[in-house]
């Protein structure tokens, strides 16, 4: 069976649902839609005085890749500011083969998506939403 895309790590990240849900009193929130496929991600964050994330939550109405990416992002977001999240974005882009260099954990899980251009936006959508929230 040629199941390259849905490898165990991606499925496991999606099922882990790290950070799934909404925050009570977020400092900032943002929502992003992918008009092509209808995926929708809402991200809530709490920030400290230096603009660093202290808490993060996400709600995904979307596919497994989008859910897995939101989980991965939530796992590494706490303690980072906008510049730190931009670093995570580079990691995702590296995993997708859109930037040179080695991706770091946990975004290495998305390397199989490099061969599926039409699904890469699904992985990037939570990062877009978080970028908006931090802007």
């Amino acid at each position, binding site marked *: 069976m040629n199941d390259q895309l849905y490898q165990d790590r991606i499925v496991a990240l999606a099922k882990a649902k790290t950070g799934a849900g909404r925050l009570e009193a977020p400092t900032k929130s943002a929502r992003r839609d992918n008009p092509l496929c209808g995926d929708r991600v809402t991200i809530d964050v709490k920030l400290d005085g230096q603009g660093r994330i202290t808490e993060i939550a996400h709600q995904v109405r979307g*596919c497994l890749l989008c859910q897995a990416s939101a989980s991965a992002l939530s796992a590494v977001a706490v303690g980072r500011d906008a510049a730190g999240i931009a670093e995570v974005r580079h990691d995702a882009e590296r995993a997708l083969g859109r930037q040179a260099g080695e991706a770091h954990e946990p975004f290495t899980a998305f390397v199989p998506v490099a061969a599926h251009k039409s699904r890469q936006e699904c992985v990037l959508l939570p990062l877009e939403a978080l970028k908006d929230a931090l802007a």
Partner: protein
Amino acid sequence: MSFDVAAVRRQFPILSEIIDGRPIHYLDNGASAQTPLAVIDAVRHYETTSRANVLRGVHRLAERATEAYENARAEVATFLGVQPMETVFTGGCTAAINLVAYSYGSLLKPGDRILLSELEHHSNIVPWQLLRTRSGVELDMIPVTDDGRIDLAELPRLLTPKTKLVSLAHVSNVTGALLDVRAVVSAANAVGAKVMLDGAQRAPHGPLDLPSLGIDFYVFAGHKAYGPNGIGVLWGRPELLEAMPPFMGGGSMIGRVTFAETTWAPAPRRFEAGTPAIGPAIGLGAACTWMQRLDWSAAHDHEMALVQRLMDGLQRVDGTHLFGPASLQNRYPVVSFTLDGVHPHDVAQTLDSFGVAVRAGHHCAQPLMDRFDLDGTTRVSMAPYNDNSDIDALLAGVAHAAKTLR
């Protein structure tokens, strides 16, 4: 006589493609159908023996091109049961709807109403919203029943003397439901409203007899009806086309141009400004003739047997929900479903790894998705060349997605 699906398949070269060691199970015909050799050959014949512009030259290639283009119009007209002069080539189905919304729409007044339905494709919603912004017409919407049909019981409430046009999908691109055209036309006529049908999902399933439907406009897309991309058709009642101003201005659509004033050519030329998509029109003509030659009574039975096999099979997978009419009556071979706990895109992606092509998502019908509170569905849309092996490959893929992705 039973339907010889193998003989039909042989006419579609792409169906013997092998990708990653697997045959193609093409079940995304509602998005774009495949094209038979008859169409490919007709386009090639034009490009290799008759390529020139139409209507403008006196040389022999121009005459050949013009003849082939007008012959294609006649083939399309025959397929629709209408006259060539009433048959306008457009850039597609969307382009045809926009033409009517712009041109017929320019004859409407603020406060006039247009009636649509909740299951329309965005291309039969957005052009009317643009018209609303331009000219102050009002839009009404017929709701959809729980089994995915336009709820005609609501017609008396929604049709008013202000309603000038009712524009509805002949067949839904999500649920496969066939519209009860007679009921719509008689209700619309009673208030003096015109009726337009979006035939994008109906035209690929055999010839039509538009005059017997009593409608005023019909549109469809070439690429969904086994023809090329970049071509579509608008049919309109001649007296309506005659009353409508042009949509675009340019060459070929004029009577006489001076800087003071320009007069319009009669339909269909009036609506075909500029050099048309000549090759694609010729291909669409060939596609219509190809459809004309198929035994559609047998083909339809064959398609609906596939629908039954699909519905039976899906119901055996835990957590699937079929969406749309439960019966095979008054429907066409488009089937949407959801699988609990698995997003439609993930179903479609898994199916791709089984060699099965389907569409997943909102199908450009977001109001319908909202009506059922769905993110999307997985849609299986069939053509006469599909066979049991296509359905069985799909069912295996759905079972696999159900097992591994939740």
